[in-house]
């Protein structure tokens, strides 16, 4: 759970108003807008829902997810998010949070992982995934990104992610790197993080999952990547597919040491 700031909202508004008159950049304005919203981040509603889901007996096997191993042992939630994606010996795969949750939902609860992966974002079991991701990432809020790179497969996934990041294609001949390599780039007024290195605390990989005010939805990293591919006019990647996990490894390892502010709030 995030500590609520003591500063009254009206005070923050007054300060922002004064700052505008002194000629602030648009980016500073957006940063202050986010700061003001932090006090009432609706991601907390998703966290509460996710925590309940984690402890609720569901599925054909009528089991909770409390025995789910997110990499730090069965049932350990705190600190798991900042070390994902990582290699799991039981599935012999590198998995991110969402693909690992799918594994747990299938093995522990008896739900059909393939059906959940195919379902549209934000509905049915996918809405439950969003809530679970909010809960699990919130348990690592304020911790530093620290993805393991000891296993061979984790290194392979990093290299694969790097190649996917620089892979150009589609009708606009875009790659992830077109927008996310180098500093000072932006789309309209949004500053774009440089994802080839640590972009700083709570920026880029360390800011997701996040609540999007404009759509009133909670977006996981899987959904964020899906939308990046849409903007590049690429075909949509499969949910929890290897390419999305590899990109997660690439961004996560690059962001080593960045403080996670997930679940954060976006415009």
């Amino acid at each position, binding site marked *: 759970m995030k500590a*609520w700031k*003591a500063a*009254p909202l009206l005070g923050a508004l007054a300060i922002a108003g004064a700052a505008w008159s002194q000629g602030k950049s648009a980016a500073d304005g957006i940063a202050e807008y986010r700061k003001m919203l932090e*006090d*009432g981040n609706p991601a907390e*509603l998703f966290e509460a*829902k996710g925590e309940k889901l984690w402890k609720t007996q569901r599925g054909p096997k009528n089991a909770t997810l409390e025995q789910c191993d997110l990499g730090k042992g069965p049932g350990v939630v705190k600190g798991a998010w900042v070390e994902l994606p990582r290699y799991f010996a039981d599935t012999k795969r590198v998995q991110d949070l969402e693909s690992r949750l799918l594994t747990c939902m299938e093995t522990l609860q008896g739900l059909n992982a393939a059906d959940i992966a195919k379902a549209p974002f934000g509905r049915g079991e996918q809405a439950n995934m969003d809530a679970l991701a909010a809960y699990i990432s919130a348990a690592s809020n304020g911790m530093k990104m620290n993805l393991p790179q000891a296993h061979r497969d984790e290194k392979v996934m990093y290299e694969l992610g790097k190649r996917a990041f620089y892979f150009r294609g589609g009708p606009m001949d875009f790659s992830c790197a077109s927008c996310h390599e180098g500093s000072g780039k932006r789309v309209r007024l949004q500053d774009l993080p440089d994802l080839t290195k640590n972009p700083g605390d709570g920026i880029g990989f360390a800011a997701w999952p996040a609540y999007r005010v404009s759509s009133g939805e909670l977006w996981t990293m899987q959904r964020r990547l899906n939308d990046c591919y849409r903007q590049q006019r690429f075909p949509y990647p499969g949910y929890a597919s290897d390419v999305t996990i590899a990109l997660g490894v690439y961004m996560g390892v690059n962001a080593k040491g960045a403080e996670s502010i997930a679940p954060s709030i976006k415009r």
Partner: protein
Amino acid sequence: MADPMKIRAQMAGDKATVRVLMAHEMETGQRKDSAGNTIPAWYIQTVSAKHNDKPVMSAQWGPAVSKNPFLQFSLKGAKAGDKVAITWTDNKGDTRTDEAVVS
């Protein structure tokens, strides 16, 4: 049954700052779904606050209020340990009350 609210009430000087997050769709009734049908209006109409069972605030809301709304107000004469209860009622008649203790 609606999802629970998140209420924080903290003393700041001689007043308590109350912050409330409500889980609600707040559908305006102006939008259409992918099939072109109007999505029916569904929003919170009244919000009220009680301080130890004494009404201290009431508000009338409409469709202009955002999804998952956030409400903040300060409460005079509150002490640590007091109870603050928030109730909302929407246009479908659904209602929800949650309580928090001032810290």
